[in-house]
């Protein structure tokens, strides 16, 4: 079920690197993909148990670590494809080798049954044979996968949930190591502010303060207890004086900035702008925050020449490379181990705080240092999902069939992840004495799904397509990967445009899509979502219904969403009906959870969220200033899974983001007769759209 040319196996070919049978009764399976709250650990255990024919509780998943497989980042909805693909191939190969060894003892009739090899009379286990089987061999991907045992396709309960619900230690925030000290950071008031004066001796002299570390514009308070670190940070903040920032941009000027600044252009599809477009429009979204419920946290210790870091990072190896680069250390002297944190939806401050802990550990050797960010820093110093501007022009024939299509996307790049830029992309490295500013973000290549250009190409038959991504060479505010990257605004824009074209030609929007869609699996999710929603029914007064559809990245899961909204003074969402096809489903409950969760997060972005900033200072620093969706605002959500047991499995974490945004926009247009093209869809944006 892996994809041919699995990159995880290319990086880590040996079977023994993935599976370990040395502990009797248990299989240790290693992964490089991080549990971020998405449930990947549970799915990977199911995959290994199925391929080996053992019970799930006999499989122990070993979390990502720089002593294990390098699977780069946990990103792009690729974990089941890459790590799942590697592990199923490794387990299949292992099963073949163990079967061969069993047959040498039991004869050629020996088969695997109930987790043991048996000839009908005698039985031996994997572990009885472990000493005789050599796993130091490259994984053979060509082997035929064994018949499914029923473990895949079963909604296995999540392995992490009970700890979290019962309040048992599970997160890096909960780790307590002998001799551990606690640190808090005091950041500058704005980007570009410099530390002028720091007379902090009064704090440093407190008996429970280990040190106040000052390095350039980086100020950290390290204390024997967390209480003292928190209180020491508050006291220190009042003793620092900072210069004013010389930054000038405000969030309201971002569209003008992105469309006028020097850009690096990438042609995704060669074509020309339609001569006589029937519809040209501009769509925008602001910067969007990750807004995880738990501020980022990490622990590090520098002892006996090894710097060990515990982090909720999405990529232990890339983080290690950037920590080593920033500290000028050899990579082999740094290790990063993954420990769960609060929900992660992209490049959040997990890596930044890991560097903070690493840096402080080098200043306070032999003691573990735990650093936790404040809520304000989490909402203001994190990388944000980039603001974007999309211009679309489309021409049609007399019957409404689209004959040519043009897309221009403007914005900052969608990745400044560790080790992807010319210098370390760690916040504190940029704030230290002689530090290097974080370079402008780049965009992943088209082969990896692009960034600004993610889902820029319509999945429809639209004649000639022209598509150019214009990545800004200046970064007014820190931008990086947020769940679905450019697909959120691109799908919103494309599907809004399709909806508007349908209405222009007086054609039902679902029917209009079908006339332009050849992809059978795409058609099937549209039909399933439409049917579930009762598409075509009479709407109540002030209600509207809208649809959004995309195949994620053009290569991932197919997803269609129908939204019903009530639009009076503001938007209330009455319901979401979602259909998804992510190939063979490993864990139906897990997929439904991801699809629903993605849709609700997208609903929050699309209806409510905007990072506000002025002159280098992020102003949306609290939950009051950056409100997200609340329990009372969450609509009923119905998810329909189109299981395709014969097809390869595909990731589901990001598929619903774009289609949900589009469905909401189209439902608002249906309810109000006015199309809002600037996100978020607040009452202010609606009033602005009505008055233009």
């Amino acid at each position, binding site marked *: 079920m892996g994809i041919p040319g699995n990159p995880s196996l290319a990086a880590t070919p040996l079977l023994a690197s993935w599976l370990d049978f040395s502990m009797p009764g248990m299989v240790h399976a290693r992964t490089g993909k991080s549990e*971020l*709250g*998405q*449930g990947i650990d549970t799915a990977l255990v199911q995959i290994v148990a199925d391929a080996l024919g053992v019970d799930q509780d006999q499989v122990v998943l070993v979390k990502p670590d720089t002593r294990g497989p390098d699977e780069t980042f946990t990103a792009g909805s690729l974990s089941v494809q890459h790590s799942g693909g590697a592990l199923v191939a490794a387990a299949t190969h292992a099963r073949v080798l163990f079967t061969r060894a069993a047959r040498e003892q039991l004869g050629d009739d020996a088969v695997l049954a109930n987790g043991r090899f048996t000839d009908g009379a005698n039985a031996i286990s994997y572990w009885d044979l472990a000493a005789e089987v050599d796993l130091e061999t490259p994984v053979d991907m060509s082997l035929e996968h064994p018949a499914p045992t029923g473990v895949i396709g079963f*909604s296995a*309960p*999540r392995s992490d*949930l*009970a*700890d*979290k*619900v*019962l*309040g*048992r*230690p*599970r*997160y890096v*925030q*909960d780790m*307590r190591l002998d001799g551990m000290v*606690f640190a808090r950071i005091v950041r500058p008031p704005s980007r570009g502010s410099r530390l002028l004066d720091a007379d902090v001796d009064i704090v440093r002299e407190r008996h429970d303060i280990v040190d106040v570390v000052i390095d350039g514009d980086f100020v950290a308070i390290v204390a024997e*207890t*967390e*209480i003292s670190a*928190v*209180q020491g940070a508050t006291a220190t903040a009042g003793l620092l004086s900072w210069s004013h920032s010389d930054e000038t941009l405000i969030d309201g000027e971002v569209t003008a900035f992105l469309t006028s600044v020097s850009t690096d252009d990438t042609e995704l599809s060669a074509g020309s702008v339609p001569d006589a477009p029937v519809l040209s429009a501009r769509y925008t979204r602001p910067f969007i925050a990750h*807004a*995880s*419920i*738990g*501020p980022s946290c990490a622990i590090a210790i520098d002892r006996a020449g090894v710097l060990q870091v515990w982090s909720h990072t999405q990529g232990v190896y890339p983080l290690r490379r950037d920590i080593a680069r920033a500290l000028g250390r050899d990579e082999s002297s740094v290790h990063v181990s993954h420990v*769960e*944190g*609060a*929900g*992660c*939806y992209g490049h959040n401050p997990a890596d930044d705080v890991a560097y903070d802990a690493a840096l402080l550990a080098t200043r306070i050797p032999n003691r573990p240092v735990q650093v*936790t960010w*404040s*809520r304000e820093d989490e909402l203001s110093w994190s990388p944000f999902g980039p603001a974007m501007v999309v211009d679309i022009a489309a021409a049609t024939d007399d019957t409404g069939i689209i004959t040519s299509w043009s897309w221009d996307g403007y914005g900052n790049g969608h990745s400044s992840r560790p080790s992807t830029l010319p210098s370390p992309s760690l916040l504190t490295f940029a704030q230290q004495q002689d530090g290097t500013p974080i370079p402008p973000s780049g965009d992943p290549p088209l082969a990896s799904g692009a960034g600004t250009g993610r889902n820029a190409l319509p999945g429809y038959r639209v004649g000639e397509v022209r598509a150019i991504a214009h990545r800004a060479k200046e970064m007014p505010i820190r931008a990086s990967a947020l769940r679905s990257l450019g697909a959120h605004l691109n799908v919103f824009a494309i599907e809004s445009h399709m909806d508007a074209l349908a209405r222009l030609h007086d054609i039902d929007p679902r029917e209009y899509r079908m006339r332009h869609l050849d992809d059978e699996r795409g058609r099937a999710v549209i039909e399933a979502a439409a049917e579930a929603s009762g598409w075509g029914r009479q709407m109540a007064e002030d209600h509207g219904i809208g649809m959004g559809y995309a195949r994620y990245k053009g290569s991932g899961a197919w997803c269609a969403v129908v939204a019903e909204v009530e639009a009076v003074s503001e938007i209330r969402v009455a319901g979401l009906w979602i259909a998804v096809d992510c190939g063979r489903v490993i864990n139906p409950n897990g997929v439904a*959870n*991801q699809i*629903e*969760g*993605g*849709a*609700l*997060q997208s609903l929050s972005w699309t209806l409510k969220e905007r990072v506000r900033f002025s002159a280098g200072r992020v102003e949306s620093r*609290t*939950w*009051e200033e950056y409100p*997200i*969706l*609340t*329990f*009372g605002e*969450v609509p*009923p*959500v119905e998810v329909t899974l189109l299981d395709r047991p014969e097809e390869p499995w595909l990731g589901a974490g990001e598929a619903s983001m774009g289609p949900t945004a589009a469905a909401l926009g189209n439902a608002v247009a249906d309810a109000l007769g006015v199309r809002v093209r600037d996100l978020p869809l607040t009452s202010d944006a609606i009033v602005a759209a009505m008055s233009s």
Partner: protein
Amino acid sequence: MDHDLTVNGEQCRVECSDTTPLLWVLRDALGLTGTRFGCGVGSCGACTVWIDGQPTHSCDTPVWSAAGHHVTTVEGLTDAGPHPVQETIIAMQAGQCGYCLSGIVMRSAALVDDARSQGRPLTDLEVREALEGHLCRCGAHNRIVAAVIEASEA
């Protein structure tokens, strides 16, 4: 200075300043890390505990005001075994990252206990109103609401 608290039924004495938030006393001095730090200003609900049975934000409750009262955390919610709402959240897979859950458990458990003592199940609206001050970023809201209602019906 010293503060005497009753936490999960046990007497304890902690030494810290009057204004130290209860959250850090629980997590740091007492090692009860099940109560989460989310915002520090009572805006997200992640740090919710009970004081004399009433759900309260521990992050903006100064320790002096909890002295002499009974504090209950997620670790001490019941004498034995999980609370019904913990069971239904697990059974109905009502979570993803789980960081918001211990606070939600504390709020919901009080609600469920109250409803069960009155012999009437909770409504969808009641649960959403009670959880309005609890933020969840993963989008597990509807599952959580269903699990709380289910626990109230048991």
